[in-house]
């Protein structure tokens, strides 16, 4: 399982892919250094899973060149498969087997040999805190346990490059933290990791570099710090009880009012006390009654607004009402 020393873990150049005339990936290029964590950040439908499927030899790209640990994806797929591990978005575990049997299956298929395979299985069960559930069928596993087993199965062959497609989606906060710890540990051990996420916080927490993927194009790339500098700094949401107040507020604050029924106005704001005071003063002078105000710290939506110049603002807005990190403010009159 040797790759060439000094070659980046993953290199992709000019990758294009379409499904039935629909362009899913448009000239995507990325480089992940050996032992680094690279996060692909984007909403559903951005093409995150497609790039993972292409890089992990599941589907072919239309054009572009890719290599994993120095092996060309198009011409040496089996060499690539020997060094990678993939944990997809949908659990790739065998439901009719126990935890041990699932891991043993991987050990057998990786040709680890009887004793080495058994040792690896026992070690991974221990490492992923699954020893107690080792001999239970997967139907008795919780979501977090399945995800841990899924990743453990990926690691049986000690892959040098790992693809994690939304590894924490659907996990409870504690399981998510556990998963983060595991991912950090892998990178510390020199494994190259490409992960996809819809969650800015997750990318921020884990990644050395982040690429923002939107409609199949990389619209921004950099370290978390570099990207955050490009985010204007969140917004406040003003909640009104009737449409006239909403319209007046939009006029006073020079923002466009949304045409939905929620009577909520979103105003760019960094959430500091000074800027809030100015904002509320403006509303007060206009004699506008605000029901509630909430402060919204930057999330994926804001990254998008910042890096796409607002062209996808409306579409992104459609996903806004998921629970974000919102601090409820006091009622203002």
């Amino acid at each position, binding site marked *: 399982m040797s790759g060439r020393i000094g070659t980046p873990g993953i290199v992709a150049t000019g990758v294009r892919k379409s499904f039935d005339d629909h362009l899913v990936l448009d000239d995507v290029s990325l480089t992940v250094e050996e032992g680094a964590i690279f996060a692909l950040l984007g909403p559903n439908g951005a093409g995150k899973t497609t790039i993972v499927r292409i890089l992990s030899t599941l589907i072919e790209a239309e054009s572009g060149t890719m290599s994993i640990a120095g092996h060309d994806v198009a011409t040496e797929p089996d060499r690539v498969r020997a060094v990678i591990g993939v944990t997809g978005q949908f659990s790739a575990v065998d439901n009719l087997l126990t935890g041990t049997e699932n891991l043993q299956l991987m050990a057998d*298929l990786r040709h680890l040999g009887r004793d080495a395979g058994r040792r690896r299985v026992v070690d991974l069960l221990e490492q992923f805190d699954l020893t107690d559930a080792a001999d239970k069928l997967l139907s008795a596993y919780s979501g977090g346990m399945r995800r841990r087993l899924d990743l453990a199965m990926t690691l049986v062959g000690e892959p040098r490059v790992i693809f994690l497609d939304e590894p924490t989606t659907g996990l409870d906060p504690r399981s998510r933290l556990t998963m983060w710890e595991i991912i950090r540990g892998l990178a510390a051990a020199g494994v190259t990791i490409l992960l996809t996420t819809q969650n800015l916080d997750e990318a921020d927490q884990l990644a050395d570099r982040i690429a923002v993927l939107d409609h199949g194009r990389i619209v921004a790339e950099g370290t978390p710090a570099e990207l955050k500098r490009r985010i204007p700094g969140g917004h406040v949401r003003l909640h009104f009880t009737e449409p006239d107040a909403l319209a007046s507020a939009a006029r006073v604050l020079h923002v466009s009012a949304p045409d939905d029924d929620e009577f909520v106005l979103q105003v760019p704001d960094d959430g500091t006390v000074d800027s809030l005071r100015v904002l509320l003063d403006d509303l007060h002078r206009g004699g506008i009654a605000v029901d509630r105000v909430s402060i919204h710290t930057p999330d994926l939506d804001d990254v998008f607004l910042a890096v796409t110049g607002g062209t996808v603002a409306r579409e992104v807005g459609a996903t806004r009402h998921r629970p974000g990190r919102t601090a409820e403010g006091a009622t203002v009159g």
Partner: protein
Amino acid sequence: MSTLAYTIGDSRVMLRRNLKHQLRYPSMTLMLIGMPIVLLALFVYVFGGQLGAGLGVHEGRSAYLDYVVPGLMLVTVAAAVQGTSIMVAMDMTGGIIDRFRTMAIARASVLIGHVLGSLLQTLGALGALIGVAFALGFRSAGKPLGWLAAIGMLVLFAFALIWLAVALGLAARSVETASNTPMILFLLVFLSSGFVRTDTMPVGLRQFAEYQPFSPIVDSVRGLLTDAPVGSHALIAVAWSVGIAVASYFWAIRLYNQRRAVTPT
């Protein structure tokens, strides 16, 4: 290790997985093995008195038992391959197949594991059926060589239908579809010489029954087990089996290699 050694090794792993699945899904396994036995009892004890009266030379319930056993052997094969189709579709619609595809393993081993596992299951089910048939009074005039030839013919036919079921399982979009499509095979056993003589059927149906693959196979097996001449039936039966096996094999491999992401993004 050579490519062949890897293929054999990986296929063995997949076969073990398939056999474990059969044990972990006992409701299906028992249903596939038990149903032909229930049908045997039904046909012999409920319908057998009347159906046996129309057999010609040897008549009666016990004569009908001897007559119908080869038909139920094919029911057993048809039922077992329904399990194949379901198991293949379960694999293909789940996430595990993508994991296998991203590993450096012999690609064919996934299908080979299913085929060999199903073949063993079919043999087990045939053994159970034959055992019960003997317990109920089935008597065979067949010689050991005849039995061997009959079993060989059933195995070959099972092999062909298993590949067909693998292809149907691969073609199915859901496990439900995969469990329904092989039902047609089941129906074909009834529309053959498996349960009644084809010369008792109306003309159109009779022609269909005589020219579809199940009849020559039933007739050959029946001939071999009663030590009667089988004539050209055996040759036609083997030709059908080989033809179905080859066509299904290529269809299955094509579907297997063509499979693409169901969800594009």
